[in-house]
């Protein structure tokens, strides 16, 4: 995804995109069609009300009031009144019954579509290779599955058919008005452009002002968050007054942003009520003269007045829905860009399922570069027999972590072959392969959830006894006890645990999963040296009987290795046991001498 998410086509009605969005609704087309049909019925019935009322007034009531005539027409008039009322009642009940069913149906269906889309997107993202995650920041991906999907939700639930509903109502009213009397129709509709213009101007300003408010809220929250997290420092240095003054300034600019929106709406709402009143006044004046000329009856005037009221709501809705549509297209475009990203490892169609492997690992002339840029590894070759302990030594950036990533097949080498038990990694079934390779990285990642979940990581066949036995083997039991046992809760990212404790949990996790090959990146930073001693003895237990490739930071741990690989600028510069390397008198030997001098 080379494009910036903001850099979109910008077209509101990208037809191809809309069609693709609607394809997600295809499985539910019956529901959508039913709902649309219901909406059409509802609009038709809603339109009928004022018409019926007009006929009642014109046909019966006004004559009666005018003439004050005899009893003969009285029964007839009463009959007409009761009949119209009866029809109105039935229509009303039908309308609201249908409306309720329709809203429920649309929501249910819309939510299903959204659920499908969201899980499909999530599934797609989690199945991308690590390269995809390198290229896409987490925040962006989270936005795709949350707020973008929510925007589409609005489109499916309240967008398509409600837009249709409102359009039908508007067109229906306009048609009826013109059929009844085109002059009065023009008078009635004359305020509509004013209302639209008024709404357009103020709603556009409101959107801009809300953006400002959101920005200010964000800024205030960020500084608030900072001040509250830094409260110990603030108090230690007695800076309360200065901080309060800064906070007040931020707070004040938020207030000013709010007040700007208050000013905007203070103008908007009164105008929105004044304009229909103007329409009513014009209707009365024109209507009156038309009635006097005998072209119209009073019922018509009342009908026009009623329709004017009915007109305003859908009008406001349509303006609103245009924004929804625009938002949905933009969100859809972003979502599809992720769905179209096919960054994944090529999987062999005839991948062999993995039984227990012995754990012999070979690198043969392995080259690698991230993103076709500077090569990170240049022709790495080495062989590890099953159960061998290898150590990787080298300065930061020499390619140690890359070798680890390639071995777990997070990436494929750009050239050369890596084999496990003599078979190319690419021919193994991926999940099975990774089950054979245990990785413990410096920065241990823990999920929010129970200790148990963090240890079995989805392999529910691991019993509590097995987990505890594994934990006890790597001395992680005290940590688990402190957390309240296997059912104890681990905070997001294990924030309450020290680095050393997290490391021990990661060892327990790997021990329980019992991989044939172990890949270790020893922790160095942020861990105190004393805890480090504990960690070292745990590592010794963990590596027993497994092929181990470790990035080492301690000479003492290296000396017992079967082979030490000295990596420099992506090349293997020296290899051999501690003694051999000493005899070779290269980089490693120099280092060792330095140490013995100390």
């Amino acid at each position, binding site marked *: 995804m080379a494009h910036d998410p903001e850099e979109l086509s910008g077209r509101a009605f990208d037809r191809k995109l809309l069609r693709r969005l609607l394809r997600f609704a295809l499985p539910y087309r019956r529901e959508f069609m039913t709902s649309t049909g219901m909406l059409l019925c509802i609009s038709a019935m809603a339109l009928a009300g004022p018409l019926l009322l007009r006929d*009642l007034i014109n046909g*019966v*009531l006004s004559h*009666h009031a*005018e003439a004050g005539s005899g009893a003969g027409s009285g029964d007839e008039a009463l009959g007409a009144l009761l009949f119209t*009322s009866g029809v109105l009642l039935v229509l009303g009940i039908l*309308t*609201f019954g249908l409306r*309720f069913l329709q809203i429920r149906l649309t*929501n249910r269906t819309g939510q299903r579509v959204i*659920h499908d889309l969201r899980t499909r997107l999530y599934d797609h*993202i*989690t199945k991308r290779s690590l390269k995809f*995650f390198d290229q896409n920041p987490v925040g962006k991906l*989270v936005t795709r599955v949350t707020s973008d999907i929510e925007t589409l939700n609005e489109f499916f*639930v309240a967008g398509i058919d409600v837009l249709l509903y409102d359009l039908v109502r508007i067109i229906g009213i306009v048609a009826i008005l013109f059929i009844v009397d085109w002059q009065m129709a023009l008078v009635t509709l004359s305020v509509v452009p004013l209302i639209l213009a008024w709404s357009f101007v103020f709603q556009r300003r409101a959107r801009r002002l809300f953006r400002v408010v959101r920005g200010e809220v964000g800024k205030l929250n960020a500084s608030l968050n*900072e*001040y*509250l*997290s830094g*409260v*110990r*420092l603030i*108090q*230690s*240095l*007695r800076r*309360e007054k200065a*901080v309060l003054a800064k906070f007040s300034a931020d*707070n004040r600019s*938020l*207030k000013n942003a709010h007040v700007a929106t208050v000013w905007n709406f*203070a103008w908007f*709402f*009164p105008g929105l009520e004044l304009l229909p*009143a*103007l329409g*009513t*006044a014009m209707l*009365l*004046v024109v209507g*009156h003269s038309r009635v*006097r000329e005998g072209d119209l009856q*009073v019922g018509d*005037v009342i009908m026009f007045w009623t329709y004017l009221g009915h007109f305003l709501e859908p009008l406001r809705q349509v303006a609103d829905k245009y924004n929804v549509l625009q938002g949905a297209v933009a969100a859809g475009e972003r979502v599809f860009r992720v769905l179209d990203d096919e960054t994944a490892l090529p999987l062999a169609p005839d991948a062999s399922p993995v039984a227990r492997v012995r754990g012999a690992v070979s690198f043969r002339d392995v080259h690698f570069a991230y993103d076709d840029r500077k090569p990170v590894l240049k022709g790495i070759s080495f062989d590890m027999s099953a159960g061998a302990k290898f150590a990787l*030594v*080298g300065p930061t950036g020499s390619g140690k972590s890359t070798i680890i990533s390639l071995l777990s097949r997070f990436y494929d080498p750009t050239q050369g072959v890596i084999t496990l038990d003599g078979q190319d990694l690419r021919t193994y079934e991926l*999940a099975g392969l990774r*089950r054979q390779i245990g990785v413990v990285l410096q920065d241990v*990642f823990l*999920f929010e959830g129970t200790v148990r979940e963090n240890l079995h990581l*989805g392999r529910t066949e691991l019993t509590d006894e097995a987990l505890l036995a594994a934990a006890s083997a790597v001395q992680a039991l005290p940590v688990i006890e402190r957390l309240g046992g296997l059912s104890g809760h681990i905070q997001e990212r294990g924030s309450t645990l*020290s680095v050393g404790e997290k490391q021990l949990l990661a060892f327990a996790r790997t021990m329980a999963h019992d991989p044939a090959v172990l890949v270790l990146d020893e922790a160095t930073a942020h861990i105190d040296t*004393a805890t*480090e*001693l504990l960690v070292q003895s745990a590592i010794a237990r963990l590596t027993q009987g497994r092929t181990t490739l470790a990035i080492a*930071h301690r000479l*003492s741990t290296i000396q017992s290795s079967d082979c030490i690989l000295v990596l420099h600028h992506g090349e293997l510069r020296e290899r051999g046991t501690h003694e051999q390397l000493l005899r070779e008198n290269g980089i490693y030997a120099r*280092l060792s001498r330095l*140490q013995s001098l100390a």
Partner: protein
Amino acid sequence: MFRFLKDPDVLASAREHRSLLWSGAWAVLGRGFLPLAGPWFLGRSIDIVVAAGSNHALWRYVGWMMAFAVFTAACQFWMRWVIIGWSRVAELRTRNSLFGHLLGLPIPWFDRSRTGDLLSRLNSDVEAVRMGYGPGVMHAMATGLTTIGAVILMVSKNPLLAGLALLPLFFLFFSMKRLLPSIHDLSTAVQESQSTLSARAQEAFSGARVIKAFSREDHENEAFRQLSQGVAERNVALAKKRAVLNCLVEGLGGLSLLVVTIVGGLMILRESMTIGTFTAFFAYLNQLIWPMIALGWTLSLYQRADASFDRLNALRQVAPAQTGGHAPGLPSDGGLGIRIRNLTFRYPDSPRLALSELSVEIPRGSVLGIVGRTAAGKSTLLKLLLRLHEPAPGTIEIEGSDIASWSLDHLRQQISVVPQESFLFSDSMAANIAFGVDHADRAAIEAAARAAGLEDDLRSFPDGLDTVVGERGITLSGGQRQRVALARALLRRSPILLLDDALSSVDVATERVILDGWREHLRARTTIIVSHRLSSIVEADQIIVLESGRIIERGHHQDLLAQGGLYARLFRLQQDERELESL
């Protein structure tokens, strides 16, 4: 109900803007009563149309109708501008005063509180209270007045018809009162389920490597699918409630109109009512539907405002840290002597002693080094010195005077601390370095930056000292952050300097340069250095090794090496590590 109206800051703000609010109250009155003229003149006009009366008479009514509409609009404008505008001003005051209060609360209280909770106190709760006394009160008054007026007018025109037509609307009001809170609860539930979902995605994407390493994709997707299902179900439940609301509003409103049609129609037939009045009733009912919804809505606003007000009040009632005390005279240079005697400390809610019977003497101008494992009590000791937590009286003395009786201001003026986690604000480098002092000239800031070894870094930054760091600026490495924190402490020139593992991320060579540059600085003050990395403290006048809150070894570097205890072991291990790194 209406507890939130007693918010002290809001009351103070209301008193301050008294005359403006009075004008707003008049506008509310206008907004409440003036719209009632509309239907009345409409009815009259229709009667003229029916009777085919004179143009002149019609024009008069229509003119009045428009005049009232303009007055209504003017009142509405003024009401919104004054009352809602003021509510934002009052909100500012509440938030400022709460934040000021928060800043003075004792640190142990912060240890127990979550930042997220405090944020929502200052955001959502302050906002919810404002919704109560601002828009809530305003709309309730305006719509309440309209309702009363419309009911009176309708009853005076035709009591029977009014009674029958209003019945469904009162039912609407009561159902709103019941429905709106449950809609609010449901939408909160929707939001909660969405944020759970979002947190899950956040975690899974951040942990993509682990998920892949353990082939956990399917398990993860299934968990997400269930969360997504939950979101969908809650959304549907919410939509259903909204549909009920929608139908109630339209249905009951329609029922009212139907009653008018039937009963009013009958009355017209019996000649006890004109078509104009009939139309006016329609117009009044249209005017009443919104107030019924609004009144129900404001009631739910009040409930929320009360709940939020209670939470804010609980916050207000937390007692601030004791800051009073005396300020003994102290020697003006050469640092201050510190004596710690039998210091024992336990964190509340912790079964374990963090420090136990610790005694150490730190003469003026000397350097004390502290070493120990994680949680050995090193940072606790520094916190007690600063009285971020209160030590028992008589256990810590500075220049022979018990610090427990000092004023906090006086104590903390004597001390500069560089905490373990170097805290930087999203601001310029200069502002970050000068954070600890009221005023600092540029030259002093530059000198402090130099002493902290920041010179080269500053040269590489786009705007030197004015470069913005943090979230809205450039990201500093751990080592750079620590050195900024150091410069901040140095600029304070206080007689006591506390370094809590303050150089852990600074590389060894830079550390050497900094420490060498300081040698004469350090003599001018009393310094306590806590460090995992022993190279920082080998030259200290005195080193103590802590284990579970007790001193297990003490002496000079050479003594400790000779003792062959924990210190000696740690020292050899670290040397080892450093050699390998330098490869």
